[in-house]
């Protein structure tokens, strides 16, 4: 029993020690730095390890494998360090939490033994004048000082004390949530053409493989379009998907998704990440006048467009996004009844050329060209995310309290030997005492050492 207790005690002391913290932080820092110089499997799933192996000598390869350097951030030792750090954080903050609750309940009545003593002379008589005098001397509002029956008392910043615990617990919350993310989180991508719907997305699992996961609902891309700066060939300003969520075929939600503005539904998030060109989905509108009459049609590659009075068939062969610098164009094939084939290009920006070359028999103009795209959506499901935000907020608020609101106190006690000012601060007492002393000395109130 004794032995078990001493083991527990030793562990407890280990996890409470600052030396462990320093060791773990250094390990994590150095480890992370090393990890950035090697390609990491989760970020590059297609990494060819066999090929990499050739670059290293066998023992070095073995060493790299031992430390799982190519998936360093999920390696055994890195994860172990994170777990140890979390325990370390708890061991250091939870006991302090209990002390804190006790300390916060009531204000400090007596100066603690660690307070600094300063001797004062030339004080005015009477507590009330002294109160005003001391407040003015130190440049603090008089109402912050009160009489505690023996002398004067000043205490500020008591509610800054939870800061320390908040920082450390907040950080531990982030670490735990991060582990949960890694175990339960799934992210992958979904590629949809306009009009297409999907229920399955490709995700990378925790060991670097790709797996297909099924959504509990269907996502349909109603439309996808690019906004470009300036001309057709200009840089992309934004890309937008109009998405619909369908449950058993019923429309449940519809939303416009663009970069930086995701869609959240059913615990899943859909982000506009990128897009792909799908030339087979190119479509254009044509204004046609031929022997069948005048009309405006929409056509895709391979569609028949027109027929002239000689029986020549005009078909849409293919598109070009930018034909010789003249802009979007369509290649139209002429199929003669005798089997001859010719072709020509129709350009969106230069209408009327066909009509000019074949007056009276055919007028064919491309009025609008719409390149085919598919939207590439990132799909992510991570139940831990709100806890990350909570932990971060807790940590930042805690930091503001720790550095901004310091718990300090002053007591003025007078006796036959003279008056003593007790100066105390929870942290940074030396600096606070120096500040107070500086004000006393500069005001001419001598301090007897």
């Amino acid at each position, binding site marked *: 029993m004794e032995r078990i207790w001493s083991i527990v005690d030793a562990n407890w002391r280990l996890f409470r020690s600052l030396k462990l913290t320093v060791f773990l932080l250094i390990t994590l820092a150095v480890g*992370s730095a090393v990890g*950035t110089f090697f390609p*990491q499997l989760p*970020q590059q799933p297609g990494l060819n390890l066999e090929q990499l192996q050739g670059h290293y000598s066998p023992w070095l390869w073995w060493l790299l494998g031992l430390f799982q350097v190519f998936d360093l951030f999920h390696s055994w030792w890195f994860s172990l360090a994170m777990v140890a750090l979390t325990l370390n954080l708890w061991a250091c903050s939870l006991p302090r939490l209990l002390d804190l609750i006790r300390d916060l309940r009531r204000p400090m009545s007596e100066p603690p033994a660690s307070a600094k003593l300063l001797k004062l002379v030339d004080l005015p008589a009477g507590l009330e004048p002294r109160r005003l005098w001391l407040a003015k001397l130190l440049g603090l509002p008089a109402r912050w000082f009160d009489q505690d029956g023996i002398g004067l008392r000043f205490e500020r910043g008591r509610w800054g004390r939870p800061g320390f615990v908040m920082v450390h617990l907040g950080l531990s919350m982030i670490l735990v949530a991060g582990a949960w993310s890694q175990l339960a989180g799934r992210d992958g991508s979904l590629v949809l053409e306009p009009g297409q719907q999907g229920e399955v997305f490709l995700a990378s699992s925790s060991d670097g493989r790709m797996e297909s996961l099924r959504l509990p609902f269907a996502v349909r891309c109603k439309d996808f379009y690019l906004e470009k700066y*300036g001309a057709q060939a200009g840089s992309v300003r934004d890309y937008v998907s109009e998405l619909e969520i369908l449950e058993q075929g019923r429309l449940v939600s519809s939303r416009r998704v*663009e970069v930086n503005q995701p869609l959240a539904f059913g615990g899943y998030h859909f982000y506009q990440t990128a897009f792909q060109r799908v030339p087979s989905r190119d479509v254009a509108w044509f204004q046609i006048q031929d022997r069948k009459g005048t009309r405006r049609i929409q056509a895709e590659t391979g569609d028949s467009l027109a027929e002239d009075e000689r029986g020549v068939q005009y078909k849409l062969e293919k598109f070009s996004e930018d034909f010789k610098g003249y802009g979007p164009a369509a290649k139209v094939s002429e199929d003669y009844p005798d089997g001859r084939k010719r072709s020509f290009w129709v350009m969106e920006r230069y209408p009327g050329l066909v009509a000019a070359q074949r007056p009276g028999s055919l007028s064919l103009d491309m009025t609008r060209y719409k390149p085919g795209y598919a939207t590439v959506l990132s799909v992510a499901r991570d139940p831990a995310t709100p806890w990350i935000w909570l932990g971060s907020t807790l940590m930042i608020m805690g930091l503001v309290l720790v550095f901004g609101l310091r718990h300090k106190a002053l007591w003025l006690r007078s006796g036959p030997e003279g008056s003593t000012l007790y100066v105390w601060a929870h942290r940074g007492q030396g600096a606070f005492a120096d500040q107070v002393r500086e004000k006393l000395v500069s005001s001419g109130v001598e301090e007897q050492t």
Partner: protein
Amino acid sequence: MSASVLALAFVAYLLATLAALLLVASSRDSWRKLAVAIGWLGLAAHTLGLGLRWFEAGLVELAAAERALGHVVEGSERLAILLSHPPFTNMYESLVFFAWSMVAVTLVASRLLKGKRYWVLGMVSMVFADLCMGLASLTLDQAIAPLVPALQSWWLFIHVITAFLAYACFLLAAVGGVLYLVRDGLPNGHFGRVGAALGILVVMALAGGVPYVSGNLASVALLGDEGVCRSSSDCRGPLPPYDCLAGHCVSKESCSSEVPCPGRHTCRVLDDGRGGRNESRCVYQRMVEVSDMQRRPLRLILPGATFLLAGAGLIWLLALVTFSLTFSLARPQSKGFLGLVFLAAGALFLVTALGLGWREAAGADLGPLIAGGVWPPDVEGSTHLSLRSAPYRFALALVGLLVVGGLSLIIGLRKKVEGALPDVTVLDALVLKSVQVGFPLMTMTIVTGAVWAHYAWGRYWGWDPKETWSLVAWIVYALYLHVRSIHGWRGRKAALVAIVGFAVVIFTFLGVNMGLTGTGLHTYGGPGM
């Protein structure tokens, strides 16, 4: 317009530093007042320059939006678009903004700290600011282009501003740390050795290692007379766009006997093989293959320049060795004169080399090298100056050596410098306070970065090199706070941790972008953070 105002700021900081040096040399207080005044003027110009840049970028965004939407934008939407493009969205702007935040934070801090001796912090930061702005001027892509979709977010503002404020605080801490070590009595020999080692490390790492000094300076190679390609992205000639047809780079420009091709192209008839119409197009004769570093190094293309560059490198190594020997072995009052001579000689070699190199390049008909070659973009199709390329590395090497030179000057003029500095305890407190302000800001930077990443990319943390290194910096400062408050590692050791922390911050800011850690989500030309 903004560029001219920023140039004013650059000059002002330079003058302020000169005035400061004069103060140190002559001990006349009027120099200090002048230095501080010029410094504040410089900061005002810098702020104005950044404001102008912001406005100019807003105008570009407005024009682009109106063109995309097809109508004029009015009212609050117009205002929103005008404000949407802050001045820190590419490497050039980031460096200028970083410089501004350094000077602003240190000048404001030195004012708040109330004392004649804090001005020196402002001066040191102005030197850093000038270095940053000098680096900024070396970037090729200084133009304002409309923002890519991922950067069109208000998180851009919050994340980047907190980051730069944090970095500025950490710079203040590092400067305080260095001054602490100077004041505290760290022996000259230590300084000399540490400074020399640091300088050599910086020169070697940033300039690419020993091969650079030995003359194998190629980032590109020139291949034969017939340009061959595997895909159109291999073609980098002066007449884009190119198709890679049958292994040759063919421009989309057509040609004839009346309309000949420009230089380094021949007009060839392309047979489409189906009896259809043939067309004549310009075929590129020479091609630059970016990936191959071994075939034909720069020393064969720019012989004179390379020789001089190698010479500069070697002379600077001599300077470093001399400095470290001087301060390790010699008497304290030695000022490292010989080392300074070597430093100046090396600088002269460098300047001559760059000038000669430019002339050689012009004369050698190396258009393809300059257009897409010697300073090759890392990201295909981008016009960013590659941070891996020769001039950037030389500039950074120069920075490394200037740091060494500066340290040596401090050592040489140590007595006078010490007299101008505040007390040791005060400096130690300054370092602590700076970290106490910077650390929450850094935490916020990482958190806002995570939030933004969550909205843009779908995950709040991906162990991207930039993210990882900012975490490393955060850990270093967390270590600073811990070992300081509790172990009692005050003073000298704390100062060293603060300095190491800032080195990590610099790596986070520049090193990751230089591609030293491979590519990640942050290197697509976004804010050069």
